[in-house]
């Protein structure tokens, strides 16, 4: 698979390590009343869809940036790649 890195252009997926569902960006609020249940869901349960999947890839053998890659789990086709930093900020994450 070739991942089209937003800053570096097309890179071999072997340069990356894989983290899983990009919903891991949305860490639950540890102060919430439902935190125990929320962190169980966050830590252990996955949608695991057959089809389009937004997922986190880490450019370990490259610029060490985290990416959100939209990839089809049935075909391995990649339709979109964003910097995870930009995705997190767009969802309201402060630095």
């Amino acid at each position, binding site marked *: 698979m070739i991942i089209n890195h937003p800053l570096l252009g097309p890179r071999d997926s072997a340069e990356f390590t*894989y983290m899983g*569902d990009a919903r891991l960006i949305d860490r639950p609020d540890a102060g919430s009343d439902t935190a125990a249940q929320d962190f169980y*869901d966050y*830590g*252990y349960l*996955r949608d*695991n869809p*057959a089809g389009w999947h937004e997922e986190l890839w880490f450019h370990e053998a490259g610029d060490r940036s985290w990416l959100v890659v939209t990839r089809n*789990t*049935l075909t391995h086709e990649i339709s979109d790649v964003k910097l995870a930093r930009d995705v997190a900020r767009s969802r309201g994450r402060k630095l």
Partner: protein
Amino acid sequence: MRFSGLRVIKEALTGHKGWTPAWREPEPQARYDIIIIGGGGHGLATAYYLAKEFKQKRIAVLEKGWIGGGNVGRNTTIIRSNYLLDGNEPFYEMSLKLWEGLEQDFNFNAMVSQRGILNLIHSDAQRDAFIRRGNAMILNGADAEMLTTAQIKARYPFLNTDDARFPIKGGLAQHRGGTVRHDAVAWGYARGADSLGVDIIQNCEVTGFKIENGKALGVDTTRGFIGAAKIGCAVAGSSSRLMAHANMRLPIESHVLQAFVSEGLKPVLPGVVTFGAGHFYVSQSDKGGLVFGGDIDGYNSYAQRGNLPVVEDVCEGGMAIFPAFGRARLLRMWGGIMDMSMDGSPIIDKTHIDGLYFNGGWCYGGFKATPASGMCFAHLLARDAPHPNATAYRFDRFERGLLIDEKGMGNQPNLH
């Protein structure tokens, strides 16, 4: 129709006209006592033991394609019980004991071959870990023996024991481990279950569950609605897709694992050798092909095919310990889809929905578990209580912090 040596001779003399199909092709009935979803090794074994050991009636196995067309036909055929943790080792040793008696039990030649499995050691730390593992195995009634490099060289003369990065310093052997003709496992269980009255219904994909007031009443399929008092799901690889129909999210990611077979060679490899440090393991099939594999690709996939970086990694591992195998040409390679669970161990449990039971999360260790998985899932379905050897395989172990994490990797499925 029972198979026997006498029968083979009789058929040979009479033109092989007396053989009958190994199982029927029944139309689905409107209702069963127990439905098993998934006609793979685990589903067929479950149905077989439900009928044989637990005397259940009116059982159906629903398979979306043809039986044995999933992971039971896509694995590298290895059986072993060399686990460490209490939740696992008694279960896998039970499985190995069932393998030892399987062919007599279901009257089918599954070519169970206890040719032994060897895990290689390269460092003092690894030796300590493997001695501990071997002791855990022995404590649970399994067999284990630490071998010296000289003993290993005598058995595997082609093994490169002097690799600069991973010199071989010994190994942990389980002599009762080995290989099994994988397709014959599915066929043997299917034939055995069918002869006990189980309906095996192929080309019948489950498209939904009928659930009312927290109770499962049946399944919608491509061949119509089928009612059931109890429904057991055994579709590892596709567990998340199936259970999504019951609005369940699972502690599972689906990953692709590749496997490879070389052209046929004369006998060069008497047992199974695993090179864990280099992500490579290999055995030689009775046809002569070297059957080998390595790590999962490491990303979510339902594609049943992998990518080239892992092919390169596996072949590099093979070349490091068996340089001579570089002369063999690759004949076939393929991928299978694994339920990679959050702790690397399986789940055999009730769900929160009454009458709906789950068997999955087998990671890449499902084949060796087939008989015990079937026996324990049948126990759960028939008696509504877990089998004593499968009490740890609960859904709620993640919530309660009771993980069974053989490799100590945490909740990162692609590292197990």
